[in-house]
């Protein structure tokens, strides 16, 4: 397609808690490299970085009450609007930060469908390097996002290594390519109805009025006096 490329929105979600935080530093570096790579291909990008630490209590309350407050809802809305996500978390006790996971637990299952994601983590020792692929990657697989091939894990010694810069660059370029092809958007748009959704959910394409709802389904026919659809176990899910 010829014309001015549409600007893309990248949202970085940072679960680091210190100030300055090495996790935030890593997220910022990925953001910068992604902007550079997109600029090379002529795609303007806007970036928003969400620090979860100031919202930690609100996020925890939303989990136990089921009712996100306006600040948390705003952040979920920003993630919903993103074309791509940079997920950055510290590793604590051999796993991703509970703050990051709690935030992930609050978002709709269909919020990130086919969105490109860079997976990034920092830790106190190189021995936790597999946490990204063992924990973040399955989480984003569940959310049916598209994590880029290169995972980023940064131990203290990596900050003195030129390899780190090269890996960040590689992950950022992978993100830029995925964004440039529009593959994720095409996947989501071409088969949106194929995924499970919630009426009035936070996903940008969520059904919000009767005009968005498909009334030509087995359940809708059942609602209007028709016969029952086949059992769930016989339906392809």
């Amino acid at each position: 397609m010829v014309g001015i490329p549409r600007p893309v929105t990248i949202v970085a979600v940072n679960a680091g808690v210190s100030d300055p935080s090495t996790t935030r530093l890593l997220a910022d570096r990925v953001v910068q490299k992604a902007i550079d790579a997109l600029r090379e291909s002529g795609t303007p990008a806007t970036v928003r970085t969400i620090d979860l630490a100031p919202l930690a209590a609100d996020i925890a309350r939303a989990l136990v009450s089921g009712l996100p407050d306006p600040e948390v809802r705003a952040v979920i809305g920003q993630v919903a609007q993103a074309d791509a996500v940079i997920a950055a978390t510290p590793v604590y006790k051999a796993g991703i930060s509970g703050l990051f996971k709690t935030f992930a637990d609050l978002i709709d299952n269909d919020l990130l469908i086919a969105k490109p994601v860079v997976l990034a983590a920092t830790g106190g020792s190189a021995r936790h390097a597999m946490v990204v692929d063992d924990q973040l990657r399955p989480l984003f697989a569940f959310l049916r996002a598209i994590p880029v091939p290169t995972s980023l894990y940064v131990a203290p010694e990596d900050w003195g290594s030129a390899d780190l810069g090269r890996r960040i660059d590689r992950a950022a370029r992978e993100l830029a390519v995925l964004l440039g092809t529009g593959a994720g958007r095409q996947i989501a748009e071409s088969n949106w109805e194929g995924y499970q959704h919630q009426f009035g959910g936070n996903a940008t394409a969520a059904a919000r009025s009767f005009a968005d709802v498909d009334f030509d389904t087995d359940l809708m026919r059942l609602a209007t006096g028709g016969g029952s659809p086949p059992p769930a176990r016989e339906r392809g899910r």
Partner: protein
Amino acid sequence: MQFGVFAIGDISPDPTTGYTQSEAERISNLIAIGRRADEVGLDVVALGEHHNPPFVISSPPALLAHIAALTDRIILSTAVTLITTNDPVKIAEDYAMVQHVAKGRLDLMLGRGNTVPVYPWFGRDIRDGVAMSLENYNLLHRLWREDVVDWDGRFRTPLQGFTATPRPLDGVPPFVWHGSIRTPETAEQAAFYGNGFFANHILAPNFHFRPLVDLYRQRFAHYGHGAAEQAIVGLGGHSFIAKRSQDAIETYRPYFERHPFFRGTRLEDYLAATPATVGSPQEVIDKVMTFQEGFGDYQRQLFLVDSGGLPVELALEQVELLGAEVVPVLRKEMAARRKPGVPDAPTHESLVRAKYGDAEPRQPRPNPNRGDNLSGASPYQDSDPDVEARFPVAF
């Protein structure tokens, strides 16, 4: 416009005294709340079905029938009756019976239920919950309207030649509300049948339920029951009232902030973000008036006033304040703003009038026992001769 209270029969320790009501006390207290609601002129008392502690109302029809005997004009209803795990045949029978003893002062609200283990306890699969609720209502609808039903569905054994007894009072089934917080299929079913739609309107941000209510309204019109603004909408609400605003906040704060649902949420933040109302009668009136603005003219407003370990004295005071200071003003204000042509919620009287005009309602009299405890192919003296019951045959 109808105003009333709904209760789910939860029992929890009073956070200010540590006192926990016994099941016997809570049941007596629910009866007292129903009676007081009737005395102060509220229109509806609705009880919600649960099948596990710390809830006490496993059998709303039994409790409602008792309250019916002790009251004069209030409508008995549910919040909700489980349309998934109950057999629709038993719902048809139980609620028709209460409708008779209550002389028509009964309607009911159907919901799926969100307590996961209840499904397996009743031999059901929660993954089929939506389909089960839709199919079960389709059957319930027929059982109350056809003397003889043949039925074959997924969720119960087939019926052949079945008559649900007693037939609904005056041949008019209880009005049904469908409750849902996120299921467009439920709103569609309510719209298809021209039934009511109820949004619980608690535990969610302000106007969170508007898209679903709007969907119901549009589809109500689509199926030819009237204009979208004439659809029959009910809303729940969570309130605590005291004469002085600050007293309401101070009294209610421990009941809210120490409740497991709300742990760590400040009452003031919750009040700003959700439809809950805690304050003076005027503050509650002002907030409820925003519901009419946001959802359009609606027909039923129920308040949850006895939850979270509140002692019965406070709950009864809530009912009195609603009856004396809040509802009379709301009735006037809402009526003044109501668009012309918006109907009231159907009642037994209005449904009888709509069906028979000035004629006498049907009073079915069964044909005699033919010796096998059945009345033969035609169950009632006035049954349609074209509809014959064909009973299952045993070989």
